[in-house]
């Protein structure tokens, strides 16, 4: 009898412990991998000091799975307490669920928020609803292998013509010195329509243009001379210039990263979140330098691109909503933001200590270069995602079977997009 009582007591104790812990534990779903998990662990420890007994558990999913799981969970009332991701991804979640909480009142209760600019808040807002509180600006620069530049006798390129000259040397000049023609000038991706936007936007906004496809009035801009020039060079990078790996048309993020981290590419996109990993000896060992995207026109200033804003959102059916709101506010505090900078490589506060970061991380943390943000037309034009998908599909078709002359292709594409905008905007 005594033994049964002991077992019963133990079971009840474990159940009680789990139940108590569950009530105090927030769950966050993100796609930041190990860096993100480390960040949330640090924040959990700090948060527990302010809110004894509370803890935060984060789960990281591959981005593709993150969408499906979040949408499924919110729609079946099994939502996590909070979700963390890029604004455009949270827009898709809101479109599919209509159950993301308006974070405006949550943010308004935070007194120390002057570091968030108008652009930051505009990005976080979709159809008059603030769907995330901005937490990390996503900066993307042009990365170059330092040792390769030295080997071919070049410095960091300033203009697109410089890039083409250096790229040809990277492609043909055996910059890794292994005696084989196995180097790629540039690592890009083009497997899916959505992949292409990431690359094209870098060329467009990095070179000082303000819109990829349409302006705020909904007018298609791709065949305007300045835009057409950038677009044509972008398309040639995949085709006649032979700067990318021949199989790039089947490369998505994972393959692009294999090319970069395998040390086969001389130029690539480097995001603030990449630096920590690429500083490691087994990856690039810090053998890269970052800078703004090249100039296409001397009169137009080039920039490092702000490709988005990562932030925290709360589903309406969050199981521990009040505690989740408290944690979301806490994430804007200095301790949480410092942890963000040190683990993920990005933050929104400007009063953080960057001295412990590597030189390459400091480049982003100090925001030394001119920054240019995406125009985020999806938050202005409801029809934009459909037009954009058609646009990228058209560009992919062109890249897969390149025309002899890109100019008529661009003109034809512009016409098709205008027809589509006219139809959808009705």
């Amino acid at each position, binding site marked *: 009898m005594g033994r049964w009582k002991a077992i019963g007591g133990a079971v009840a104790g474990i159940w009680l412990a789990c139940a108590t812990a569950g009530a105090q534990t927030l769950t966050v779903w993100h796609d930041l991998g190990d860096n993100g998990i480390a960040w949330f662990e640090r924040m959990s420890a700090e948060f527990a000091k302010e809110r004894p007994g509370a803890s935060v558990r984060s789960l990281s999913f591959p981005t*593709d799975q993150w*969408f*499906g799981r979040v*949408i*499924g969970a919110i*729609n*079946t*009332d099994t939502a996590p307490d909070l979700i963390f991701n890029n604004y455009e991804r949270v827009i*898709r*979640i809101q*479109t*599919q*669920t*209509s159950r993301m909480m308006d974070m405006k009142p949550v943010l308004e209760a935070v007194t120390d928020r002057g570091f968030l600019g108008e652009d930051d808040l505009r990005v976080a807002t979709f159809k008059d609803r603030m769907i995330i509180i901005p937490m990390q600006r996503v900066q993307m620069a042009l990365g170059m292998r330092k040792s390769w530049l030295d080997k071919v006798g070049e410095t960091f390129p300033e203009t697109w013509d410089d890039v083409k000259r250096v790229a040809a040397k990277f492609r043909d000049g055996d910059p890794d010195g292994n005696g084989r023609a*196995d180097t*790629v000038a540039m690592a890009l991706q*083009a*497997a*899916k329509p959505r992949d292409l936007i990431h690359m094209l936007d870098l060329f467009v906004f990095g070179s000082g243009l303000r819109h990829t496809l349409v302006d705020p009035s909904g007018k298609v801009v791709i065949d305007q001379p300045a835009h057409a020039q950038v677009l044509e060079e972008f398309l040639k990078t995949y085709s006649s210039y032979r700067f990318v*790996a*021949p*199989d*790039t*048309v*089947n490369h*998505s993020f994972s393959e692009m990263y294999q090319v970069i981290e395998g040390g*086969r590419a001389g130029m690539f996109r480097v995001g603030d979140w990449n630096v920590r990993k690429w500083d490691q000896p087994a990856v690039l060992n810090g053998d890269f330098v970052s800078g703004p995207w090249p100039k296409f026109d001397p009169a137009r200033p080039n920039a490092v691109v702000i490709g988005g804003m990562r932030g925290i959102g709360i589903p309406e059916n969050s199981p521990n909503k009040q505690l989740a709101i408290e944690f979301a506010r806490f994430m804007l505090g200095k301790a949480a933001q410092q942890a963000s900078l040190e683990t993920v490589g990005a933050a929104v506060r400007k009063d953080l200590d960057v001295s412990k970061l590597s030189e390459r991380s400091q480049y982003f943390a100090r925001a030394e270069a001119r920054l240019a943000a995406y125009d985020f037309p999806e938050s202005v034009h409801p029809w934009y995602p459909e037009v954009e998908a058609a646009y990228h*599909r058209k560009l*992919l*078709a062109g*890249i*897969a*079977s390149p025309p002899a002359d890109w100019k008529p292709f661009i003109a034809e594409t512009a016409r098709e997009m205008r027809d589509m905008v006219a139809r959808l905007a009705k």
Partner: protein
Amino acid sequence: MTSALARIWQDRVFYALVLPFAALTILFGIWPILLSVEMSFTASATALRATPTYVGVANYVSVLADPLFIASLTRTLVYTGLAVVANLAFALSAAALLDSTLLRRANLFVRLALFLPVVTPDVAGYVVWRWLFDRSFGALNAALDALGLPGFGGLSDPGSVLWAILVAELWHHAGFYMVIFLANLAIRDRALEEAAAIDGASAARRWVHVILPQLRPALTVNLVYATIQFLKTFTVVVVMTKGGPNDRTNFVSYYAYQLFDQGRYGEATTLATILFAVVIALSLLALRLSDREPGR
């Protein structure tokens, strides 16, 4: 009614043994299919809720008006046709070769070499094939280059990608069909061939008129199974091409997966339902064709 119950009672051991498997089939086979079909009539945003919004046949109208889906379905049917013919022709040829005495001691080795890919994890196999076809460092183009021959576009050329994945799939699947053919060849009536030989029939005529008709059961099984398999082509696309280049390998299964990925559950299950109907229809047609009595 009483007699029906009496018959069931009489066969109670049979029903008792079948019941657990019937229950599992209903629970894990038929029920999910029915749920998927039901979901195809709901609005995507509400598809996973306890009380979804039903939209009638709106998803079907939308999908059938989608030129990408029509192109994807056409592509799937063409690829299935090519893949079924190529796999069965190769498997039958290999089985005939292995059934003969031509290979002597190499027979076991060739048999193993052709069957091993069937038990190799498909993802691992396709990753290796992707590397083989890679135009930067792949062995295939390196060999062509060494021989002074023009390069093969492989997976990055819209003109060659279908053939490239067909070869990879043939490598993975043909061994299975070959084993079915071999089993059928092993149990055929050899006396008929001897009689035909005595009557002066050539080897080719013996194959066409005596052996092939006896392979009808294996042909039927392989035809139906291969049709189902290639209509659902998915893994090879995920691993090797992601539907590209220029949508050339965007088959219906992968297109449905992309829609799932975007949370468009209503449309995705509509695609799955249409594909399911096509699979059933073509499988029945294949069964009917191969079951037909010769000369009728």
